[in-house]
């Protein structure tokens, strides 16, 4: 039995614009294992987000295909196995934190007789992301980092097997970002889903990932895939180890060569 969870085969994406066709992604081949944490690293505009959206079934590739657990993305999406977190938390401003996390369960249609169970589940999730004291607050009362934690809780509440994250901490300051990186790892070690994480931060990619997919500038091609063999659980101090620095250096070199 093949333990590859996500398989991208020869995927290409071209956009039609007024001035002609733009090739966003070119010949992407990628396999991601179950429970693996994979980052997609590259300069802005290289098609990282496009690749993530192809994997999540939001964009159909012009060529090639994506399979998840041997099924088409369409089937996986309809089974609600994919959770999304974007750079913009995209919370509903009229709902409380609790209500925002509840939204996916509402959409999926959870049995209303188990109201107490739902409340338990949401409170557990809020606890996991460190927001149990804020369940009745509205998004505008929270900081950017807290809003993003709500978005993570919302993405995980329905137990998706795959979590797709598109620069989720890109808009946050470095201190908050570093803290949330570690919290994300803690959540992931708790739930063990497969994560694909788009970022343009080398430090973030190295700290979080099992493997880093380095993309070239447009049209995005895979330059290299780096293995990160830092021991887990990773801590703040992991950032200052020899291995960390050598992987970061290598990622830097790959991105620089591409210029």
């Amino acid at each position, binding site marked *: 039995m093949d333990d590859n969870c996500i398989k991208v085969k020869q995927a290409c994406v071209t956009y039609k614009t007024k001035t002609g066709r733009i090739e966003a992604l070119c010949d992407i081949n990628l396999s991601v294992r179950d429970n693996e944490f994979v980052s997609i690293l590259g300069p802005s505009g290289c098609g990282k987000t496009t690749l993530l959206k192809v994997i999540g079934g939001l964009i159909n590739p012009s060529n090639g295909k994506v399979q998840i657990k041997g099924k088409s993305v369409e089937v996986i999406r309809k089974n609600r196995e994919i959770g999304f977190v974007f750079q*913009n938390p995209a919370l*509903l401003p009229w709902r409380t934190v609790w209500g925002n996390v509840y939204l996916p369960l509402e*959409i999926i249609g959870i049995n209303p007789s188990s109201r107490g169970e739902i409340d338990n589940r949401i409170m557990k999730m809020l606890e996991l992301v460190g927001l149990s004291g804020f369940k009745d607050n509205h998004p505008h009362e929270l900081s950017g980092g807290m809003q993003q934690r709500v978005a993570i809780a919302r993405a995980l509440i329905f137990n998706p097997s795959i979590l797709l994250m598109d620069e989720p901490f890109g808009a946050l300051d470095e201190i908050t970002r570093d803290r949330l990186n570690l919290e994300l790892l803690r959540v992931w070690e708790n739930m063990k889903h497969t994560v694909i994480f788009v970022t343009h931060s080398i430090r973030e990619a190295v700290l979080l990932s099992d493997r880093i997919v380095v993309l070239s500038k447009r049209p995005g091609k895979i330059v290299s895939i780096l293995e990160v063999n830092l021991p887990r659980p990773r801590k703040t101090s992991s950032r200052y180890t020899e291995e960390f620095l050598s992987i970061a250096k290598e990622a830097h070199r790959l991105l620089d060569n591409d210029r």
Partner: protein
Amino acid sequence: MIAKISLSLIKKHLPSLLTLIFLLLLWQWLVDILKIPGYILPSPLEIISEIIQKKQYLIRHSLITLIEILTGFALGMLIAFIISLGILYSKIMEKVIYPLLIFTQVTPKIAIAPLFLIWFGYGLLPKIVVTALVAFFPIIINTVKGLKSIDMELADLMYSLSATKRQILNKIRIPSSLPYVFAGLKVSISLSVIGAIVGEFVGADRGLGYIIMISNANLETAQVFACLIILSIMGVGLFLAICLIESLYSWQKSAEFII
């Protein structure tokens, strides 16, 4: 509680209140000193005594105008909501209806109103139709904009959860459109007052517009002013009522509702 609110209201609006009182005193003084005849410009005191004397009569006609305004506004709102949903879900509808809407708005209502007299007779109906015709346009423009103002990321999230169109409408589009809808309703309620009076000017035997016409013809200028004052109070009252409803039901607090 109410006493506290009204006290803070008075405090807040004291400067404008004082200015108003000063202007009224100036008006009274000028009319007295220049001996301006009442049929050209009645003094504030004359107008007030006119209102008190003809209280019954004025209230009766005010109620008729109020009914026209409210019914026309409600009808306009209903039509606007239905058309907005049509425009939201059908590209063809959008292409066909938008130009037509603009036609109905650039044609002066005062020029169409006589036609309604022919079609709908002499009663309340032609006034209600004119009112609805001026009321619905700002609501449509704002509602359509509000319903379409959904975050790209939120739309992606809903798609990844396989949400139905109805769920997206009820849980995302309608709540997020509320601030826009109320902005439209506020413009619309002010226009509705004008619409009802226009309808009455063209041909009526009841209502404040009718009284303004006949008092003007008979040089009963104080009565004209009495009607104008009632109309403006009615207009402000209706506007504040919308603001109050907004502060109760919309998640975004109205900027105009100042306490």
